[in-house]
Every structure is written in C-alpha cells, then in structure tokens.
C-alpha cells in the first residue's frame, strides 16, 4: 500500500510529524465509522421513523446476524482467505439442529435434547471448518474455489436431505425439543421496551453522553499535548470550576423552561466547557511561549474563502427550495429530499475544506490555527442557525440544532487549547496509555448511555402511545462476539499470527508462525459463527427453509470490505466488520422507512459499496502519505 501512497501529492503536511488525528485516521475502521454516522444521519433526516427506537432495533437486528458473520469473515480475510460456504452454512447448521431435535417417527429426526444437539452440531460445524482449512492447505488451491465446492455441497445437502428426510423443503419446529424452554432464554429472550420504565432515563442519557464527550476531549488532549514538568494546581481549580458551571447549566436547562432560560443555561454550559477544558490543559500541559502573529497566507485565504462559500451556498439552497414539498422530481427524490442532499452536500464539502485549512494552519503558527479553527466553529454555528430558522420539523429544530451547536462548541474549545499549549512531538508511554484508556472509557459511557435510551421507556411516551419496540438477546451475542474477536485480534498471539499469515504466508512461516494451523483455525472460527447464527435463526423463527443463507456470503464479504478489510489480506480489523454490518443493515431498513421505491435498492447498496471502498482508500493513502 505504501507504494500507492507515494502517488498522493502532499506538500507541507508530508514533513509534519504523525499527530493524533493522523494516527486515528490510519485505522482501517475509521472510514467505516464516519460512513455509518453519515448514513444514519441521512436516513434519520429523510425518514420520519428511521430514528425511532423501534426501527433502531430493526436495523440492529439485521446487523446482528450479519455482523456475527462479518466479524468472523473479516478475521478470515485478514488471514488471507475467503469462505464462500459461510452463508449456506448458517442455514445448514440451523437445519441440522432442528433435525437433531425433531421427534422421531413419521416426521423424521433424531429426537435429541438440545443439551446434546447444540454441542453435537457445533462439532459438525467445526468439522466443516476444519475440512475447509485442511483442503485449502493440502491442495494449495485458492480458498475461493475450495469453499465454493463446500458451498455447493452444503446447498445440495440442505435441500436433498430435507426432502428425503422430512419430505419438505424446510426443517420446522425447534420447539419440539424436550428442553426447548431451558435454552430459549439464551438464544431468543426478548426485551419489550414498553414493559420497562425508567423515569430518569433522559437525564441519565444526557449526563453520560456529555460526560463521554468531555472525556474524549480530555483524552485527546492527553494524547496531543506535552506534559508539564509539574502540575499547576491553579489549573485544577479552574477545571473544577468549569465542571461546576457546566453541571449547573445542565441542571438549570433540565429544570427550567422557556427560550430565555434555555439560552442562559446553554451559555453557562458553553462557558463551563471552555473554562474547564482550558483549566485541565493549564493544569497538565506546557503552555506555548510564543504564539506568533496571525498570518493568513494566500493558499490559506483561498481555502477559507472556498470553505465558507460552500457552506453559504448550501444554506442558500436550504432557504430557497421549498422545504415542505414532497413532489417527485426524479427517482427517488422529492423536492424536500433534493434540498436536504444539496444542503448536506455543500455544507459537508465546505466544512471539509475548512478542516483542511485548519490542518494547514497548524504548520504556520498557533495564532493562525486559533483564528482558522474559530472560523470553522463559526461556520458550524451558522449551519446550526440555518437549520433552526429554516426547518419546520421539531426534530431538526431541537435535537439536530443542539447537536450541531455542541459540535461548534467542542471545535471552539479545541481551538482555544490547541493554540495555547505545546504539542507533544515524542511518545510518552504514560500519557499515551492514560489517553487511550480515557477514550475507551468514553466509548463505554457512550454505549451505556445509548443503551439506556434505547432499552427503557418513560411515562410520557407510554401516554403518547408509542408503538411497542422489541429487541432480542441476539444483539448481545453480536456485541459480545465482536468484542471478544476485537480483543483477540488486537491482543493475542493468534491475532498477530492472523495478520502475519494474511500479509505474507511464506514469510510468516519462516519466522515461525504456524501458518497452516492459524488458517485452519480461522476457517473453524467462521464455521463457529455460522453455527451460532444458525442456532439464533432456528430459535427465532422455529423453521428453516433450505435456501436460508444461500448467497449471504457475499454480504459478509461486502460488510468486511466496507469496514476497511482488504481483499488481499493482512489488513483490517474485526471491529470494521461489525461497522460494515451496521452500514449494510441501515439502508436495507432505511429505504423501506423512507418509503422509497425498493426497485432501486441494489443500486443504493452498490453505490455505498463503491463509495466506501474509495473513501477507505482515500483516507488510508492520505494518512499514510502524511506518516512518511
């Protein structure tokens, strides 16, 4: 990859050292995460229902089984192999389990209890995975061909044996198992949101989210800035004062009502954040002695003009196009939709240019950096106000407006500290570890906050008669499975071997990596995932048709690629596979939620795939180009 990176022309940036953001952007899954947020926002904007909890559970549900497979397939692909039998295997494993537990007699089946059938079917699954790996290893043929053979064999076995054994093209009735009720909670337990009330839900949610963002800022600071020789307690006092002010603002906003009170509370929060962040920084980090003079060079001026211009053009589009018209213009857009796309497109382009300008200003001097980043923050405020003034729907005026204003605040807070404190240009193990841990803690807080918001309801919602929303334990399986594999890939010897055999198998073997064993284990990992998915399906719908899963293997591969894994192996993350699954799931549901013509669905998926691959490559090249 580094040879292609050389083709990317970069000027000053090439000389810059590798900053925190560059280190972040070189991660394979970052493009996917940005894409996921973009797609979510897009469908949230164009559909009335996409953002509701019920539909969120919907796309998470699609993502769960897809994601379990995509995470395992990502690992296999990092290990340099494909498994085209993975889709058919999900259905095959589900059918096998049902066949094992069916009552004997006329209906066919072995009548085993699940306590035997579950491990037995797992053994079969691992056996198929082993066979895949063994065949690839022994024949030396591409896994693409070997597993294609397994795919056809499984497909034939599913149909042939189902018809021969139970005279149907499906296996039905998991619940005939004698101990079905014992295992049901593990694989099919459901959570009905409307049965679980938690009146402090919104307060908990907002508190955790704000806390998470605060820790993100502080964590990035820890990674970014140079530590003081000694801590300055005045800064600590200022930091605590900022917290008190921010919390007071938050409580005030929670308790009071009315525009004036809200503005006052928001101002208190904003000041609190600025004071707190600066306090934290002056407590811990080394100030800059000479901040330099504001110096807007020609190229910077051009970038600023283009960026601000694009944002303003976007706003003009938003104002002049009739926001209420749902008239069809051309597929699949209404006037309203085109307005949204033009607005978002121009604004996003403008802010990207401004971000590049801000990046470039860093190499001039801190004062310029401050000015340029502040201009960017102002542009974001302008966008927020445009949304507020011109939008008719409450969700934009309230939720979206607040989020965008908060982004502007964070940007400005960043501008204040980045221009006041010295950047650390050398590794500092202690700070790096602390910063990374803070980011992980923030991610966990964010997750807990979102889960609270999703899983519980409040009196007001029940009174308003919101439709029931359900989720099931399969989501938990997805999260746990993905988390375990992310950990394994990043922290274990097996994880390192996976990268090694995918990068260059011969070289890996020569340095002592058990290449064949590692690859076989990866195939078995994919079969394990297929077994788990088959089990989840068997418990959910109680019957499995012979064609279940056929053709899905490409969706797993697409999810992995969208998540930043390379088809050539040796590069990617397990987390990327999970993100890819989410990206795949959202449009499937979003198109239906937006009430678009579903005839165009595959086109949409194709465009997303193309964009994801191009964006991933762009980001990677850019990041690696900078790193050189």
């Amino acid at each position, binding site marked *: 990859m580094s040879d292609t990176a050389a083709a990317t022309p970069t000027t000053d940036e090439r000389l810059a050292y590798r900053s925190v953001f560059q280190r972040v952007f070189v991660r394979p899954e970052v493009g996917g995460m940005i894409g996921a947020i973009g797609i979510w926002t897009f469908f949230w904007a164009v*559909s*009335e*229902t*996409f953002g*509701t909890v*019920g*539909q969120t559970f*919907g*796309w998470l*549900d*699609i993502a769960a089984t897809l994601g379990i497979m995509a995470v395992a397939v990502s690992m296999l692909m990092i290990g340099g192999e494909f498994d085209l039998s993975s889709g058919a295997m999900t259905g095959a494993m589900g059918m*096998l389990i049902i*066949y*094992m537990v069916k009552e*004997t007699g*006329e209906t*066919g*089946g*072995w009548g085993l209890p699940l306590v035997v059938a579950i491990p037995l079917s797992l*053994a*079969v699954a*691992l*056996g198929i995975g*082993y*066979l895949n790996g063994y065949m690839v290893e022994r024949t030396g043929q591409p896994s693409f061909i070997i597993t294609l053979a397994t795919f056809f064999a499984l497909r034939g*076995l599913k149909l042939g*044996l189902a*018809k*021969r*054994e*139970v*005279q*149907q*093209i499906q296996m*039905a009735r998991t619940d005939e198992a004698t101990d079905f009720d014992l295992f049901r909670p593990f694989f099919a337990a459901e959570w009905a949101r409307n049965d679980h009330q938690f009146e402090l839900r919104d307060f908990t949610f907002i508190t955790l989210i704000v806390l998470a963002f605060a820790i993100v800022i502080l964590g990035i600071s820890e990674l970014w800035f140079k530590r003081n020789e000694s801590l300055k307690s005045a800064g600590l006092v200022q930091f605590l004062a900022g917290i008190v002010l921010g919390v007071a603002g938050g409580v005030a906003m929670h308790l009071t009502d009315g525009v004036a009170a809200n503005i006052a509370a928001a101002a208190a929060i904003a000041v609190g954040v600025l004071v707190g962040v600066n306090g934290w920084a002056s407590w811990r980090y080394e100030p800059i002695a000479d901040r330099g003079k504001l110096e807007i060079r020609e190229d910077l001026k051009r970038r600023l003009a283009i960026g601000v211009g694009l944002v303003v053009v976007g706003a003009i589009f938003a104002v002049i196009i009739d926001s209420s018209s749902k008239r069809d213009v051309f597929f699949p857009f209404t006037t309203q939709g085109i307005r949204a796309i033009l607005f978002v497109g121009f604004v996003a382009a403008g802010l990207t240019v401004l971000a590049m300008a801000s990046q470039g200003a860093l190499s001039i001097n801190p004062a310029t950096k401050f000015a340029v980043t502040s201009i960017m923050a102002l542009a974001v405020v302008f966008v927020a106000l445009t949304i507020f003034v011109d939008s008719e729907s409450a969700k934009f005026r309230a939720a979206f407006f607040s989020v965008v204003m908060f982004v502007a605040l964070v940007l400005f807070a960043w501008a204040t500290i980045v221009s006041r404190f010295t950047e650390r240009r050398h590794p500092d193990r202690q700070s790096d570890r602390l910063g990374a841990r803070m980011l992980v803690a923030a991610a966990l807080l964010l997750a807990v906050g979102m889960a609270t918001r999703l899983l519980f309801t409040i009196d007001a919602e029940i009174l308003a008669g919101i*439709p*029931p929303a*359900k989720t099931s334990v399969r989501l938990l399986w997805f999260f746990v499975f993905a988390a375990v594999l992310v950990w394994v890939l990043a922290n274990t010897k097996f994880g390192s071997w996976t990268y090694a055999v995918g990068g260059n198998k011969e070289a890996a073997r020569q340095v002592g990596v058990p290449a064949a064993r590692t690859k076989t284990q990866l195939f078995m990992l994919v079969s394990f995932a297929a077994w788990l998915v088959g089990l989840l*399906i068997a418990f959910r*719908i*109680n*019957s499995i*048709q012979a*064609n*279940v*899963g*056929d*053709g*899905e293997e490409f969706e797993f591969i697409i999810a992995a690629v969208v998540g930043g894994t390379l088809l050539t192996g040796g590069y990617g993350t397990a987390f990327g596979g999970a993100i890819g699954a989410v990206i795949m799931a959202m449009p*499937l*549901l*979003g198109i*239906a*939620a937006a*009430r678009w*013509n*579903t*005839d165009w*669905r*595959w086109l949409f998926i194709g465009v997303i795939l193309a964009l994801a691959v191009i964006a991933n490559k762009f980001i990677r090249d850019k990041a690696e180009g900078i790193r050189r």
Partner: protein
Amino acid sequence: MKRLKYLLAMLLAFSMVAAACGDSSDGDDSSDGETSETTEAEVDLTQGSDLTFHVITHSDDGPFWTVVKNGADAAAADLGITVVWKPGVNDAQTMVQDIEAAVAEGSDGIGASLPDPDALVGPLQAAVAAGTPVITLNSGSNDYQEIGALTHVGQSEFVAGQGAGNRFNDAGATKVLCAFQEQGNIGLSERCEGLSDSFSGEVVAEFMGLDADTTEQQNTINAALAADGDIDGVLGVGPVITMSALRAAQDLGRVITIGGFDMTPELLAAIEAGDVAFTVDQQQYLQGYLTVLFLYLNVTNQNTVGGGLPVLTGPGFVTPDNAAAVVSLSEQGTR
C-alpha cells in the same frame, strides 16, 4: 499428532453425513406408502383400459409437484387408465426428449407444463400434428393456443391476485402493501398487479427482502408499516414472506389484515389460529387430476373443455374456516 487430526476430520465428516442422513429408511417408507413408486420410471396403474397418457412437467418431485402427481394418479385410478409421470426436474432438454419419446410410443394424450416455451412449443406442436391431443398444465397459459392444445389447466397469477384483492375488499382494508420476495419475477409481479386491479383502495408493491434472510424481511416490513400508518393490509406473495409480515405486524402491535400465497405448515397453523386471514391456494391437485380427466374425455368422447379459454384451478382460498380440513388433506397429499 497429524494422523490423529486426520482421524478427527474423518470422524467429523462422517458424523456430518450421518447426522444429515439419519433414519433414511423410515422416511422412504412413509413417503411412498400411498403413491406406488417415486422413481421416475413408468407408473403402471392399468386397470382394464389400454389408454396411456403421458404427463411431462418440470416437476422436481417437491411438495408442490407431489400433489400434482397424486392428482394425476388418482384420475388414472378412477378412470382405469395408465398415466406415465415424467418429471423434468427443471430441465427443458429432458422434457423435449420425453415428449418426443411419448409421441414415438404412440401416446394417447400428453399433458405438459411449459417452463420454457421457446424450447417446448415446437415439440408439442409436432405432437399435435401427429394427432396426439395435448393439454398444458401449471405454466403455459400464454402458449397453449399456439401449440393447438385442447386447453390449459392452471392458475392465472393475475386472476389469483384479483381474488386476493376481493378478500381485502371484504375485510374492509384501505391500503395494502403487496410484499414480494424476489425482484424481476414476472409471476410475483402479476400477483401484485391483479391485486391492484380488483382492490378498491391503494396498493403499494414493494420488494421486502429475499426468503433467504427472514430477519431482514421482517424488519424491512416492520419499517414500511411503521413509516406508513395508513397500511392496514399486507399481501405476501409467498408463504415465507407472509409469515415475516405477520411477525412484523405483531411486533408493532398493529391490527393488519394479512393474506398470503401458497402453503407451508407454519402458514396453515397461523391461519388456523386466525392470525392470517387467508392464503391463495392454486389447488395443484386439480392440475394433475383434470388434465388426465380432460384428455380421457377428449379421447373417448370427443369433448373439449374451456371453449378455447384456460381452465383455472385457482385461486382457492384457505381461511380460518377450512384451515383444519386443509391441514389434514395436505397430510394426505391432495392439497
């Protein structure tokens, strides 16, 4: 160590095959009890008549076609004649050979399905020219006249959709989602078009995900229903997607009239429970039975049925009223 692994692999592979095969002898016995033999060899049921009809279809001997075959066999037994059942297993080339062989043998009449008109119209025209009466069944409603067949026995997808539309009219639905599970399948589109034709309210026809991923189907339908509160009916044009629609509606807690196409045990159970209003049944038993009967009447009595129009075997409907009866009939292999 390596040898051990090899053994382990063999063991697992063996257990896999064993698991899949299971008690094969039981299965064979029960399936063949009432229908003589399932081999594709000739089924001889001659009872005092020398008439022999050939029924040559793209049958895959699956649950659907088994019922057609049972119909043809029952007619042969009732009439005391011989029916030769030739399953083409979706291979038009095999069917062409079977048709030509039947004509060469001097068949008294041919019943044929037309999955691939381009390949099959010619041989059947030749059969008619040779004086063999031909009836098309199941598929071929657009081509039977060109062949010169006596009539076509089957279901018109459009008419079946119209029948479903009338059911929704009776149920008082105002906006129906016609959910299909395959894009670019003309038969499924015709079902939705028929629905639009006879239904008095609004119809939206949308692709809602493949049968291979029912999770996706269910959530996509859920999304469509949640986004459009006016939808008060769903027609699934296949049995699997119909069950997905039912689960979606139940998750949302919405009262929605659900109709479906064709039958699976789950769908029949849901109809029996009253969760699904109806399913469209094309009564394929009739396609086997009537084809043989019409050929017999033509040969022995010079009757022609249909007056140049096709004879429709559907839509029949399975509703909560007759679901229990249909369940027991489908266990006997006649529905």
